[in-house]
């Protein structure tokens, strides 16, 4: 079985009144809600003189945040720092709060896509948009894009990639498990093809939003 497309995407923007930007994003059954505050004041100990500090708070569905959540935070934060023009807001903070509502596979990709939509909603300057796609390599060697939780559990490797919207360059690459170089490259290609759908979705979402006003 070789699925090469992402599950159905739905999203909602500006649903929260307090944050500057917010979004509710789901890919199939995986749903994530994001709130963004920024650019805002920051503690002097954390401030950076020439750029904004991007802080990510990742909240799992159940329980307290642990080390695994911290790893997610770092990955999301690094992706955002590559995309957001942080030099526009020195000595400020951009706080991104990610709340997992349901995890049905491809959670990291879901989070990054949700964050991208919320950043657009907040009007924070970005160099480009970012689309993240996950894929899994099964024991038989098949590549499945946007895997469900069950596929992820049985897979020999799970890979997450994020691409930018201008040149489709790689922004984030994360691997769990082991795979050959060839397998890695073929996953990269499949994901790159699959993110077209996401960029189209972002554009349609923005168009809908602006056509209302």
């Amino acid at each position, binding site marked *: 079985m070789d699925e090469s497309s992402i599950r159905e995407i739905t999203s909602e923007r*500006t649903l929260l009144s307090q944050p*500057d*930007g917010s979004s509710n994003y789901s890919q199939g059954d995986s749903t994530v809600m994001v709130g963004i505050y920024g650019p*805002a*004041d920051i503690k002097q100990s954390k401030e950076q003189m020439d750029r904004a500090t991007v802080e990510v708070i990742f909240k799992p569905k159940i329980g307290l945040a642990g080390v695994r959540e911290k790893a997610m935070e770092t990955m999301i934060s690094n992706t955002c720092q590559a*995309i957001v*023009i942080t030099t526009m807001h020195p000595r400020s903070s951009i706080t991104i709060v990610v709340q997992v509502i349901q995890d049905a596979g491809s959670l990291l990709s879901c989070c990054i896509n949700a964050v991208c939509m919320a950043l*657009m*909603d*907040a*009007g*924070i*300057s*970005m*160099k*480009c*948009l970012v689309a993240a796609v996950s894929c899994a390599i099964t024991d038989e060697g098949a590549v499945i894009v946007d895997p469900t939780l069950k596929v992820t559990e049985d897979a020999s490797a799970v890979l997450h990639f994020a691409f*930018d*919207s*201008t*040149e*489709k360059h790689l922004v984030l690459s994360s691997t769990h498990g082991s795979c050959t*170089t*060839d397998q890695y*490259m*073929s996953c*990269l*290609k499949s994901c*790159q093809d699959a993110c*077209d759908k996401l*960029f189209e979705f*972002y*554009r349609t979402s*923005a*168009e809908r*939003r*602006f056509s209302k*006003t």
Partner: protein
Amino acid sequence: MAEIRRIRIKPPSEKAAEVNRLVTPGDTITSDSDYMRGHGTYFEDTKLLASVAGVVETVNKLIHVNPLKTRYNGEVVMSSSVESWSADVVICESTRRELRRRSAKDELNMRKYLQEGDLVSAEVQSVYGDGSLSLHTRNLKYGKLGQGMLVKVSPMVVKRSKTHMQTSLRCQHHPRQQRIHLDQSHREPAGRHPQRWFHPEFGECDAFDTCILYTYESSMRYTITELLVPEKMENVVEWTLQRLEQEGAV
């Protein structure tokens, strides 16, 4: 070894002269180096790219992108609560500043005029380096606001205009500060202005003084209880919009 294709996503039209063109971050606005860069854009090589999702607007040689949501920085300021003698300035992210402190006696007397929770209309005198503000009420049009009802309105809905204060018999409001203060000596009129009027659902009537007056007058056709029905509210908004259109104000 599988090949990685380098795909360039086709940008929307490269002409800059189009009106009402929607762009998302990373979209090329123009390759023409003649234009000046405004808000929401950035230069890369010789191209001008968008940095926010919004509508491209050109003013002569200046190109900027207008996002749907912007944060508001106002000048005439409404403070929402006064604690001792420092005011909470809502617009500028709750910086606490001193009202007036010339002598110890002044400080004690301050309580006679202003209590915690009072609504004050003041003007920003100066802005300090760390972002804090100094307010003054040295004009007759500023000062403590008496009775009325505070209506919170999203700043996006407020229309930009030069002067943002109007005192009428029944209605005194300061739309720019996202608050509308009404004279509650007539309780009825106050009830006629729930903040729902300015919810985008009910129409694109921006909040400015004439608009509020017209809405109030249109609402006089119904009794208070009738006004709670959504259809009646929509009617009132429609009448107001019609009236504004006739006058060419919208």
